[in-house]
C-alpha cells in the first residue's frame, strides 16, 4: 500500500518540503529573558482558557498552558495538522534531522530544565524512530512528552500507509500512553500526559494523535494540565518508617550514603548534601546520581558500580548501613546481588513504592519524596546523636589512596583519552554540561571529569544508547542558559550513529563542543572481546571511520584534530573559543581500556585494575 489513501494523508514526499528553515531559526532564538513570571502565568492562563478551534490547536494550547517553550521533532503526513497549528504558537520548534535526534534532544532538554522535554513525530516510521529514545527516558526516569501523529481513526487497524500501533509498541516503555479519540478531549489529554510525566517518579508519556482528531473542530478550552489524582504520591514518608530508619543510621558504625538519580530528579541535592555533611557520612553516587554530591568534597568517594572507583566499591562492600536515596539498584551498580553490600542494613528512600525491595531488600523502606524525606530523617536523627564516623572515614580515605584513579602517560605514545577529558575539564567552568555517547568514552568522561553540579552529567544510563551524545548536547544547549558551556564526549561509533544532527547544530548556530575520543574501535566491545573472547575482534574494528574534523567542516561546523599530546592545549583553547558547533577528532590510544572494572555479576569489592585481574 504505497498510495496515501486520502488527500489528508498526503506525505511530504509528494509535496514541496516547506522552506521553513529561516523562520524556525528566528523562532528558536533564545527568548530575551524579559518575560516576568506574571506574564508567563498570564500566557498560560490564556492558553488554558481560549477556544482552540481545532484538535490540533488544542494540542498546541495544551503545550502552551503547560509552559512548554521548545519542542523537538520531524514533520510528516499524520502530524501535519499539529505542526500547522504550531506555526502560530509561542512554542519554538527545533527541526531535527532524525526522530531519534528529536527524542534524545527532548530528553536532555528535560534533564537540564527539570521539566518534561517535548518531542514530536509523524505516524509509522516517525513514531518507531522515537522508540529508542522513549525507552531510554523510561529507564532513566526522565520526564518527557512524545506526541505522535496517527492515521485517521477509521483507518486504524487496516495497515494503512504509515500506520503503526504506536500505543501498543510504546506501552511497556512509557509511564502511560494515550490514544486520542476525540477532538474535544485531545487538549486535556495532552495536558494530562505532560503533567503525569512530571508527577511522582518522572517518566515518558505519549499521546497518539489520529489525523481526524487533530483536524476535527473543537471549542473546548484545554484547562490547566493536571495529572490524575491517583498518580500524585504523598511527598512525606510515614513517621514510623522514618523513625526506624533514623535509629538504624544512628547506631551504624560504617554508614554510607548512596545517592541515585532520584536525588537529582527530586531536586533534593541541597538536602542530600546538607545531610551527609551534618552527620559526616561518606557518600557514593550511582552513575545517574553524578552531580548530586560534589566530587571534590572530602566526603565524596565518587560513583560505584562496574566502572566506578575502587574506593566507592570498597565502601559499598564494607558499609554496615547503606542509606540509599532515589536509586533502583541497577545491576551495573550492584554487580551480583548476592555479594552487594553484604553486611549492610539497607535504608531505601524512594518515591516509587515498587522500587522498594525490587532488586535489593530494604530493611528500612521509606517511601516519599527525596527532599522531604531527607529533611524528615535529618530531624529524626537530631544533632548530637549522630553516628561516630571518624574511623570509618579514615578507612575510606585509606582506600582512596590505595586504589587511586590514574593512568600512565608516555609522551611518545598515542594520547590517553583520560588526559583529553581532564584537559577540557580544566578549561571549562564547573557548571558546564557534559553529554556522552555510550562506551569507553562515556566511562572516561564520568571518571575523569570532576562533577560538582546537579543536572550537568547528561547521559544514557539504563538503556546505554549509543548516539545519545550529540542530540543530547543540542537539547542541553537549547535548554541551558547562554553563559553555561556544553560539551559532548563521543566515541567514533556512537558519534556516527546520530552525526546527522550536526546539521541542526549548524543551522541553529549552537555553541557546543563535540570531542570524539576516536580509537577506531567500538572500544567497549573490543575491551570485552579482549577480556572474555580471546581477543577475537569480530565486528568491532572501525578503521573505516571518516575524518571527523573534515566531515564537521562539510556540515558547516568547525573541525579540529588531536594526534599527540602537544596538540591538546591549543585545540582545547581554540575549540572552546569557537562560537558555534565544533568537532574535535581526538585520535587516542586505541588499546586503552576502562578500569577499574567489576565483571558482570561479580562482587563490587572484586573490581579489577587490569585485565589479568578479571
Amino acid at each position, binding site marked *: 500500500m504505497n498510495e496515501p489513501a486520502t488527500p489528508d494523508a498526503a506525505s511530504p514526499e509528494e509535496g514541496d518540503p516547506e522552506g521553513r528553515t529561516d523562520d524556525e531559526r528566528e523562532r528558536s532564538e533564545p527568548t530575551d529573558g524579559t518575560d516576568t513570571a506574571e506574564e508567563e502565568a498570564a500566557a498560560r492562563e490564556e492558553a488554558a482558557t481560549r477556544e482552540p478551534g481545532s484538535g490540533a490547536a488544542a494540542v498546541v494550547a495544551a503545550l502552551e498552558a503547560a509552559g512548554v517553550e521548545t519542542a523537538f521533532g520531524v514533520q510528516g503526513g499524520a502530524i501535519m495538522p499539529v505542526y500547522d497549528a504550531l506555526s502560530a504558537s509561542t512554542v519554538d520548534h527545533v527541526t531535527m534531522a532524525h526522530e531519534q535526534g528529536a527524542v534524545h534532544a527532548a530528553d536532555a532538554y528535560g534533564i537540564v530544565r527539570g521539566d518534561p522535554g517535548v518531542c514530536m513525530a509523524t505516524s509509522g516510521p516517525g513514531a518507531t524512530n522515537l522508540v529508542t529514545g522513549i525507552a531510554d527516558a523510561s529507564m532513566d526516569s526522565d520526564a518527557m512528552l512524545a506526541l505522535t501523529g496517527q492515521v485517521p481513526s477509521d483507518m486504524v487497524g487496516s495497515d494503512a500507509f504509515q500506520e503503526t500501533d504506536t500505543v501498543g509498541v510504546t506501552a511497556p516503555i512509557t509511564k*502511560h500512553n494515550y490514544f486520542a479519540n476525540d477532538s474535544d478531549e485531545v487538549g486535556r489529554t495532552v495536558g494530562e500526559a505532560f503533567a503525569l510525566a512530571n508527577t511522582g517518579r518522572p517518566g515518558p508519556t505519549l499521546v497518539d494523535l489520529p489525523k481526524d482528531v487533530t483536524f476535527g473542530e473543537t471549542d473546548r478550552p484545554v484547562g490547566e494540565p493536571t495529572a490524575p489524582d491517583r498518580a500524585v504520591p504523598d511527598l512525606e514518608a510515614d513517621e514510623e518508617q522514618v523513625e526506624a530508619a533514623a535509629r538504624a543510621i544512628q547506631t551504624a558504625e560504617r554508614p554510607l550514603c548512596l545517592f541515585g538519580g532520584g536525588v537529582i530528579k527530586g531536586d533534593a541535592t541541597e538536602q542530600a548534601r546538607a545531610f551527609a555533611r551534618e552527620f559526616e557520612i561518606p557518600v557514593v553516587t550511582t552513575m545517574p546520581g553524578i552531580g548530586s554530591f560534589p566530587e571534590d568534597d572530602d566526603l565524596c568517594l565518587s560513583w560505584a558500580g562496574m566502572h566506578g572507583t575502587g574506593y566507592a566499591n*570498597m565502601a559499598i562492600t564494607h558499609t554496615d548501613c547503606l542509606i540509599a536515596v532515589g536509586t533502583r539498584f541497577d545491576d551495573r551498580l550492584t554487580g551480583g546481588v548476592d555479594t552487594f553490600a553484604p553486611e549492610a542494613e539497607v535504608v531505601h528512600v524512594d518515591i516509587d513504592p515498587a522500587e522498594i525491595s525490587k532488586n535489593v531488600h530494604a530493611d528500612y523502606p521509606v517511601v516519599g519524596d527525596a527532599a522531604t524525606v531527607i529533611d524528615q530523617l535529618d530531624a529524626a536523627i537530631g544533632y548530637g546523636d549522630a553516628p561516630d564516623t571518624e574511623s570509618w572515614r579514615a578507612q575510606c580515605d585509606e582506600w582512596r589512596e590505595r586504589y587511586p584513579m590514574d593512568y600512565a602517560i608516555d609522551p611518545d605514545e598515542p594520547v590517553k583519552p583520560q588526559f583529553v577529558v581532564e584537559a577540557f575539564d580544566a578549561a571549562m567552568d564547573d557548571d558546564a554540561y557534559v553529554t556522552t555517547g555510550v562506551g569507553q568514552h562515556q566511562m572516561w568522561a564520568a571518571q575523569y571529569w570532576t562533577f560538582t553540579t546537579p543536572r550537568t552529567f547528561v547521559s544514557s544510563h539504563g538503556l546505554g544508547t549509543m548516539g545519545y551524545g550529540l542530540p543530547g548536547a543540542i537539547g542541553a544547549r537549547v535548554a541551558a542558559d547562554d553563559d553555561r558551556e556544553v560539551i559532548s564526549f563521543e566515541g567514533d561509533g556512537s558519534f556516527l550513529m546520530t552525526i546527522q544532527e550536526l546539521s541542526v547544530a549548524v543551522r541553529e548556530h549552537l555553541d557546543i563542543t563535540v570531542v570524539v575520543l576516536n580509537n577506531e574501535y567500538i572500544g567497549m566491545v573490543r575491551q570485552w572481546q579482549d577480556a572474555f573472547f580471546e581477543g577475537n575482534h569480530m565486528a568491532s574494528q572501525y578503521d573505516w571511520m571518516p575524518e571527523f574534523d573534515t566531515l564537521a567542516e562539510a556540515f558547516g561546523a568547525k573541525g579540529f584534530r588531536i594526534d599527540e599530546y602537544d596538540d591538546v592545549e591549543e585545540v582545547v583553547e581554540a575549540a572552546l573559543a569557537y562560537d558555534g558547533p565544533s568537532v574535535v577528532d581526538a585520535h587516542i590510544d586505541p588499546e586503552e581500556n576502562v578500569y577499574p572494572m567489576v565483571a558482570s555479576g561479580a562482587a563490587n569489592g572484586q573490581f579489577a585494575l587490569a585485565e589479568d585481574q578479571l
Partner: protein
Amino acid sequence: MAGPTPEERPHPTGRRDEHGVRKEPDHGPEPTRRATVSALVEDEPGVLARAAGLFRRRQFNIESLTVGPTTVEGHSRITLVVEETEAGIEQAKKQLAKLTPVIAVGELSGDAVAAELVLLKVRGEEPDKVHAITSMYDGQTLDAGPRTITVQITGDETTIDDAIDAFDQFGIIEIARTGQTALERGDSPTTPGEEPGHSAGSTDDDEFTNYDD
C-alpha cells in the same frame, strides 16, 4: 595502578539471596506460593493488555487471569492467580498498582470466595453415568447428543480439578476453563478502600450468595 589485588582485599562473608535479602551463606531456594490478586481498574481500552503485558515483561508466573465489569460503571475487576515467591508476589502487586488505569490492588485472604467455571465435552456413550457425576458436582448439562455431552461445572479450583478427574473415565474431548475469579468474604472490601456500588439486579451479588467451600 597499585593497590592489593582482588584476592588480597578484605572480603565480608555475608551474602544475600536472589531477592537481595541478607542470608546465611547456605540458604536454600525461596519457596513459592499461590496468591489471588484482585485489581480494580478503569474500564478503558487496552487495560487488560497493559496488565498482561506487565506480567509477561517482568516474567511473573501467572496462572490465570479473568476480567469483568463490577457494580460501578466504568470499573472492571481483574482477578489474577500468581505463583511466586513472597517477594515476587509483593513486586507483582506493586507493579500492577503502578499502572495508571489501576485504581486499587488487593491480595485475597485465605477464606475469600473463589470460583471457576469449566465446560467439559465428554463422549456420550454412557449418558446416565455422565449425568450422575454432573449432579454430584452440582453441574448442568448444556448439550446432550448421541455422540457428545457438554456439561458446566463451577466451583473452587479443587472441585474443578476433582470433577475433571471424575469425567476422565468417559474420555474428555474438549475443555474450556475460565480461570479463577474471587471476592473477599463478608464486609471486607476486595481491594483496599473499595466502595462497592449497589445494583439490585447485579449478577455479581447473586452468583455467589450460596457458595460455600
